[in-house]
Every structure is written in structure tokens, then in C-alpha cells.
């Protein structure tokens, strides 16, 4: 079973190709890390998978053959974009209500329980939450939709180390409890080592590495970071520090 499957997928914006000739299968039931330097095409690939963008060439399907962006795919995928965009002027409770009314599947009890656990007051405005709380709220909204696939675009980029730790712990707890698939992108490798089971390295719109973390480590030796760095050097470019 595949969470995301791309065949010859390409996306060209006015400024040029953001992703080219990308063929890959991302297996379901894991936490999959999509890694690469800034501008490597990670966000483009995720946008294509969640239906925010349409492919220039090739095709992308999700959750075993469902076309990306179709009503069925939208129903079963929860997406948290970079910087967790939510309505800053709404109180947390109303933000939940908005999300509830935009979806067919919704687990209000789960959302409220999670907020209580996190200590996020429902009457506080979303715009007044800390970065960590906002990311957790976005995750809460996403999980209340009871998705089969959770897609997170750079979920850790704006968070301090403690918030990163808490956030990843929440994601891992969900995976353990629900067995859902998670695909998350990051340009920082270190924080993914303990959570990712499957690794995809994107570099300049091309897939350079794709495989099971355990298999990759067994084959190449060293840690995740070395594997990523090696693959990026092979593609002819230095990794930005």
C-alpha cells in the first residue's frame, strides 16, 4: 500500500521547473521524511500530493490510486502547510468550529481532549498563541479530521527545540495509536533520525535517494545525516550549512 505515488511527475512555475521527472512510491503506515535543501522541490511535491497544485507533467496519486486533489483524497488527507496557516483573528474554539464545518469527518472530542492536554485555552485568539502552540493547534485540527494520511510541510522549521520535541512526540503518539501514514518534509536532518522510517532525498527537483532508513544505514553505514550529505554531494552541490 502506498501513501503517495508519483510517475514522471513534473511541475513548472513561471520561474522554471520546481520538480522534474519525479517517480517514486512512498509506502503507507510509516513516518516518511522528505529531505533536501531549501528550494529542492519538497513543498512542490507535497503541494501536488495534497491537491494545492496541479502537475505540469506526469501524475500523482495518493492512498492507493486516488487522484490527488479529488474529493475522496481531500477527505482522507490532512495537510499542515509551512508555518501552520490558521485564521489568526479567530478564537481557538471558533477555529475548531470552522474546521469542523469544512469537513465531513470530524472528531470534536479528540480535538478538545488534545487542546486540554496541551493547555491551550479555547477562548484565546489563534494569533496570540506561541509558535509551538500554533503548530500543535494545526496538528490538532488535522488529527480531528481522522485522516488516513497526514502531510506536514516543514512542521519544525519555526519551532524552538523544546517545541520540536513536543511536536514530534505528538506525531509519533498518533502514528502509534492510529497507524496512519505521515509524510513530513524538512531541510534539517538531525531531528528526523529517531522518527523517520523511510527517507526520500530531493535535490534540485530530482529524487537522489529513496528507501527504508534501516536498509540505507545497513548498506552505506553511518547515520542518516551522512547518507543525506553523501547523496547531495553526489548530485554535485554542497548542502547549505
Amino acid at each position: 500500500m502506498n501513501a503517495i505515488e508519483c510517475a514522471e511527475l513534473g511541475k513548472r512555475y513561471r520561474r522554471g521547473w520546481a520538480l522534474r521527472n519525479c517517480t517514486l512510491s512512498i509506502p503507507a503506515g510509516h513516518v516518511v521524511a522528505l529531505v533536501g535543501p531549501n528550494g529542492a522541490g519538497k513543498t512542490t511535491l507535497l503541494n501536488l500530493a495534497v491537491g494545492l497544485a496541479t502537475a505540469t507533467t506526469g501524475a500523482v496519486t495518493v492512498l492507493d490510486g486516488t487522484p490527488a486533489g479529488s474529493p475522496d483524497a481531500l477527505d482522507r488527507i490532512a495537510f499542515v502547510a509551512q508555518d501552520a496557516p490558521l485564521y489568526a483573528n479567530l478564537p481557538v474554539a471558533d477555529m475548531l468550529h470552522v474546521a469542523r464545518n469544512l469537513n465531513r469527518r470530524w472528531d470534536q472530542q479528540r480535538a478538545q481532549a488534545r487542546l486540554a492536554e496541551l493547555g491551550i485555552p479555547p477562548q484565546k485568539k489563534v494569533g496570540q498563541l506561541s509558535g509551538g502552540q500554533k503548530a500543535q493547534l494545526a496538528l490538532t485540527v488535522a488529527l480531528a479530521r481522522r485522516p488516513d494520511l497526514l502531510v506536514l510541510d516543514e512542521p519544525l522549521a519555526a519551532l524552538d527545540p523544546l517545541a520540536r520535541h513536543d511536536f514530534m512526540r505528538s506525531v509519533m503518539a498518533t502514528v502509534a495509536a492510529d497507524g496512519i501514514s505521515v509524510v513530513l518534509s524538512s531541510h534539517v536532518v538531525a531531528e528526523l533520525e529517531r522518527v523517520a522510517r523511510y527517507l526520500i532525498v530531493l535535490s534540485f527537483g530530482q529524487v537522489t535517494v529513496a528507501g527504508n532508513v534501516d536498509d540505507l544505514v545497513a548498506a552505506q553505514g553511518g547515520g542518516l545525516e551522512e547518507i543525506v550529505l553523501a547523496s547531495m554531494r553526489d548530485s554535485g552541490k554542497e548542502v547549505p550549512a
Partner: protein
Amino acid sequence: MTATAVTAPTPRRTRRRPVSWTKLAWVSWRQHRAALTGAAALLGALGLYLLIFGLLGNHAYAKVASCHPAGSAVCQQLAHTFRADYWGGNGSALQSGGAQTISSLLLAVPVLLGVFLGAPVLARELETGTFRFAWTQGCGRVRWAMAKLTLLALVIAAATFAFTGLFTWYYHPFLVDGQVSRLLPLAFGLLGVAFAAWTLVAFAIAAFTGALLRRTLPAMAVSLIVWIVLAIGTATQLRPRYEAAIAAKGWNVGSGWVVGQWVTAPDGQALSQGTLNSLAQHAPASVQNSHAPDAFQNWLTQRHYTMWTAYQPDVRFWHFQLIEGGWLLALSAVLLAAAVWLVRRRAA
């Protein structure tokens, strides 16, 4: 990826029933509550003004209308005072302006309401990035955009149409008094269906521009300009041509909207403005210096020139209202559909 994989239902999948319009309507209401409240406050304040001065005006006009005999000096004086007070606004300090000024100011309300409500609907989501949230929810972006635009458009049209009812009552004395023709641009845009239709089209222009420019403030500025050009162009170029104007001899015609005046020579040729000016300069001193307003016209008539007036008679009011309301409604529908289409095809 095989056909069987697509059709084989997973246990968690149920028969698809789209997210209901009532749920989406609640979202639209919650997100635009503040703007709608602001619009309601503006219409409410203006409505209160119209209510107070409508009561005073209708009361004062009742005295004018019941004055007998109508031609007497007392009645003439009463009618004159009524016009000066309530049309010109000379009467009280409170009523600074009077109906003439108020109706001119009200002509700006449709564009203010429409642009203020319409521009942020899609542009705000695009500029703050929240569209990445909204467009990846289960309802889908097309349904989401349709729900938002339709609900707001209906609320705006209904509210402004109700406001027209109040304004018509307030304005009634000046219309029956013959002070203004209902077809004059000053009155036409505030009566019938025009006020609601011009608000709706302002909303549609702003919503579409917002989706196109992806920025709220530039969308407001651009749609403001577009609306003003459209409104002025319609009043000066388009509206006078909804029906062929009636040409009548003389410069004083019945109640109606004068759309053109000219003079023909005894041979039937129309005079250019330059010829008319030189005629005026060559008129005898007694005519040129006369204080009577129609001295020059009388002089022209004596010399077998003919004065003509093209006008749209008042009875065509509803016909014109329906033509204008019709094409504005169609234009609004096209613009809103185009905005939904932009949402549909816009890539992140």
C-alpha cells in the same frame, strides 16, 4: 494504481455526501461577521437619518399637498419653503445638506460596501496563506469559494434592496413634487433595483480582482476605480441609449431626463455650437442684455430657428431599471463565476 485498487472500497470509506451548504454558510458568516456588522452599522446609521428626515419631510410635504387653492400665493410660498428646507437643506442646521446632498452622498454607498466586503473574501486568504488550510479541507476549494461568494452576495443584495425601500419613501415628496425626474442619475441609482445591483457588481468586481491580484488593498483600489469608470460610463453613455430618446420641439419638455439639446436653422440643418455662439454674439443688444432667461430663445424662434430637446420620459423608469438591473446581475454572476474559476485553477 490498478482499476481494482481504485474501485475497491476500503472499510473506512463511506458513501460520499458533500459537506452541507449550511455548514459552509456558518463558516462564511463567522469569517466575515465583523465586515458584515460594519456594513450593517453603516446602512443602519444612514437608515436612521433617512427615517428621521423622511418623517419630517413627508409631514411637511403633506401640508404642501393639502394646501388649497394650489395656485394661491400662500401655497406657492409653502411649496417654495418646503423645497428650500428639505431639498436644498436651508431649513435647519441639523439637516445640513438636504435631500439633494444626501442623495449624492448615497451614490457612493454601493461601491464602499461592495469593495469593503468583496476584496478581502479571497485576497485575504491568498495574502495570509490561509488558503493552504482552506483549500485542503474535505469540502474542496470550489464548494468553499461558491459558498462564501454566494452567501455574501445574497446578504448584500438583500440588505441594499431593503435600504432602497426606505430611501424611496424618504425621497417620495421630491419625486411627486416634480423636483427631480426618477431617471436623473442622481435619483436613478438609488431607486428601484439599481442600488442593490450596483452594490452587487461592486462586490463581484472586488472579489474577482482580489482573486486575481492576491492582495486586499490593491484589489480595493483597482475595483474602486473600475466601478467608478463603469458607473460614470453607464450613466453618461449607456443608460441614455437603453431606448431611443424622444425628440421634441422646445427646451421645456414634460417630466423626464434630458439627454440632448440642439437648434436647427430654418432650412432644417442642425447648428454647431460655434455657429450658435456667433449667432448669440450677433443678436441685438436688447436681447443680449435682457434679464429674461428665454430672451435669446424667443429671438431665435422669431427668426424661424427651432429648438429641440431629446429626452427620456419618466414612464420609462421601470423599463430602464430592469435593463440595468439585468445586465448588472449578469455581469456580477460572470465575475463571481470567474473568481471561482480562478480559485479552482490557481496553483499554490
